[in-house]
C-alpha cells in the first residue's frame, strides 16, 4: 500500500514537472504577438455579405450541414428526422433521406458525392448511398457508447467519428469495423476536422482541450489548452499549420501547431453567446463563426478583429460551412432555415 502510494506520488510529481517544462518551452517560443505582427497587414475593412438564398424545407431545428466537394450540393440534418440534399444554385431539394433516429447531431458528404453520413443520440454513424434510386443504408457503424457529435469521411472507404464517450474512431466502411480508437480526451468529444493533407485530424472536447492526432498511428501528438469551456467547433487553417476553435466560453482561438500554443484570441465584450460552429474562407483570412445569439460573426483571422456579421436567423446558428470553391457561406439554424450568403 505504502509502495503504491509512493509510486503514485512520484508519478504525480513527474506529471507536474512535465507540465511545467511544456509551459516553459511554449513561453520560450512566444517571442511576439500574432496581432502585433499583423500591424503591417492591410485591413479587410467592413465585410458585408448579402443574403442570396433562404432554403426552406426542414420542419424542426437544423443541427448540421456539410457542402459537397462540387461546391454546389449541400446536405443538411434536422431533428425533424430528415437529411436533405440541396442544389444550392437553384434552391431545389435533390434527395430526402429519412432517418431511423431523429436525434441527429452531425452530417457529412463523402468527397466522391456518392455517400452521406449522419449520427447523433443513437450513438450510431449511419452511412447512406444517395446515388441509388432511393437512398440506401450502406453501413451502420455501431460501437460508440456515447452520442455521435461529428463524422468526417476520408474517402468512400474510411470515416472518422467523434463521440460523447470521449473517443474518436477511424472506421473501415468496407467491413463496418473500427480500425483505430483515439483515446485521450477526458470530456465528450464535440467536433473534429481533418488536415488538408489528411494525415492528421484535430478534435475539440468538453474538457476544453483541442488535440492533434495522427490518423494512421492513432497517437495524440499535441494538446492545446486555453478555453474555459466546451469546444464545440474546430477547423484547420487552410495551410494546415494552425487550428481555429470555437467554444461555449464565447471565444474563438487560433492555435499554431508548430509553435504549439495559442496565438490569437477572438473575443468581444459585447459577445456573450457561445460559439456553435465555424468555417474559414479560402485564404484563411476570414472566420465565419456561428453563435447562440442568432448571428454568424465574421472575424479577421490575422488581426483578431470583428469585421462583419450575418444577421437574419430567428434562432441559434447551429452550423456554418464554406464550400471548396470558397464562393459563399451557408448558415443553418434552429429556426429550421439554411441561408446562403456572399
Amino acid at each position, binding site marked *: 500500500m505504502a509502495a503504491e502510494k509512493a509510486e503514485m506520488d512520484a508519478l504525480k510529481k513527474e506529471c507536474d514537472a512535465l507540465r511545467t517544462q511544456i509551459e516553459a518551452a511554449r513561453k520560450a517560443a512566444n517571442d511576439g504577438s500574432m496581432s502585433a505582427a499583423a500591424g503591417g497587414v492591410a485591413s479587410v475593412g467592413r465585410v458585408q455579405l448579402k443574403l442570396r438564398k433562404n432554403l426552406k424545407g426542414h420542419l424542426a431545428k437544423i443541427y448540421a450541414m456539410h457542402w459537397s466537394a462540387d461546391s454546389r450540393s449541400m446536405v443538411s440534418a434536422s431533428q425533424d428526422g430528415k437529411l436533405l440534399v440541396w442544389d444550392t444554385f437553384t434552391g431545389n431539394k435533390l434527395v430526402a433521406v429519412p432517418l431511423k433516429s431523429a436525434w441527429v447531431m452531425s452530417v457529412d458528404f463523402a468527397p466522391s458525392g456518392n455517400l452521406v453520413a449522419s449520427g447523433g443520440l443513437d450513438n450510431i454513424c449511419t452511412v447512406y448511398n444517395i446515388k441509388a434510386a432511393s437512398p440506401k443504408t450502406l453501413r451502420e457503424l455501431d460501437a460508440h457508447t456515447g452520442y455521435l457529435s461529428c463524422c468526417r469521411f476520408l474517402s468512400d472507404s474510411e470515416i472518422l467519428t467523434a463521440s460523447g464517450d470521449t473517443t474518436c474512431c477511424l472506421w473501415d466502411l468496407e467491413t463496418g469495423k473500427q480500425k483505430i480508437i483515439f483515446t485521450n480526451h477526458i470530456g465528450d468529444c464535440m467536433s473534429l476536422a481533418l488536415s488538408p493533407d489528411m494525415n492528421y485530424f484535430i478534435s475539440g472536447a468538453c474538457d476544453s482541450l483541442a488535440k492533434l492526432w495522427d490518423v494512421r498511428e492513432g497517437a495524440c501528438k499535441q494538446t492545446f489548452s486555453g478555453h474555459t469551456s466546451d469546444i464545440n467547433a474546430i477547423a484547420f487553417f487552410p495551410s494546415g499549420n494552425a487550428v481555429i476553435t470555437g467554444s461555449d466560453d464565447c471565444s474563438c482561438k487560433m492555435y499554431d501547431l508548430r*509553435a504549439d500554443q495559442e496565438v490569437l484570441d477572438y473575443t468581444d465584450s459585447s459577445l456573450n453567446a457561445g460559439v456553435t460552429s465555424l468555417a474559414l474562407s479560402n*485564404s484563411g483570412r476570414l472566420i465565419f463563426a456561428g453563435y447562440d445569439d442568432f448571428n454568424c460573426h465574421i472575424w479577421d483571422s490575422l488581426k483578431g478583429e470583428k469585421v462583419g456579421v450575418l444577421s437574419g436567423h430567428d434562432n441559434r446558428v447551429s452550423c456554418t460551412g464554406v464550400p471548396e470553391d470558397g464562393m459563399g457561406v451557408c448558415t443553418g439554424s434552429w429556426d429550421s432555415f439554411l441561408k446562403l450568403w456572399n
Partner: protein
Amino acid sequence: MSSSSSIVAMKKVVQQLRYEASINRVKVSQAAAELQQFCMNNATQDPLLTGMSSSTNPFRPQKVCSFL
C-alpha cells in the same frame, strides 16, 4: 478504482506528457509571419474576400432579359 489501475492510468498520462514535451517548437514570430504570408498569397483566390460580379455569382438568380 483500484490503486493499481490508477497507477496504470497515471503512467499513461506521464507517457503522453513526455511525448508532448519532446516536440520542437517554432517561434511564434516565425509562425505568425508564415500564416500572414499564406493569407496574402491566397487572397486573390478568396472570393469572399475579393467579392465577385453578379455574372460569376452562382447563388444569384440569373436575370433573364426578354423582349416584351
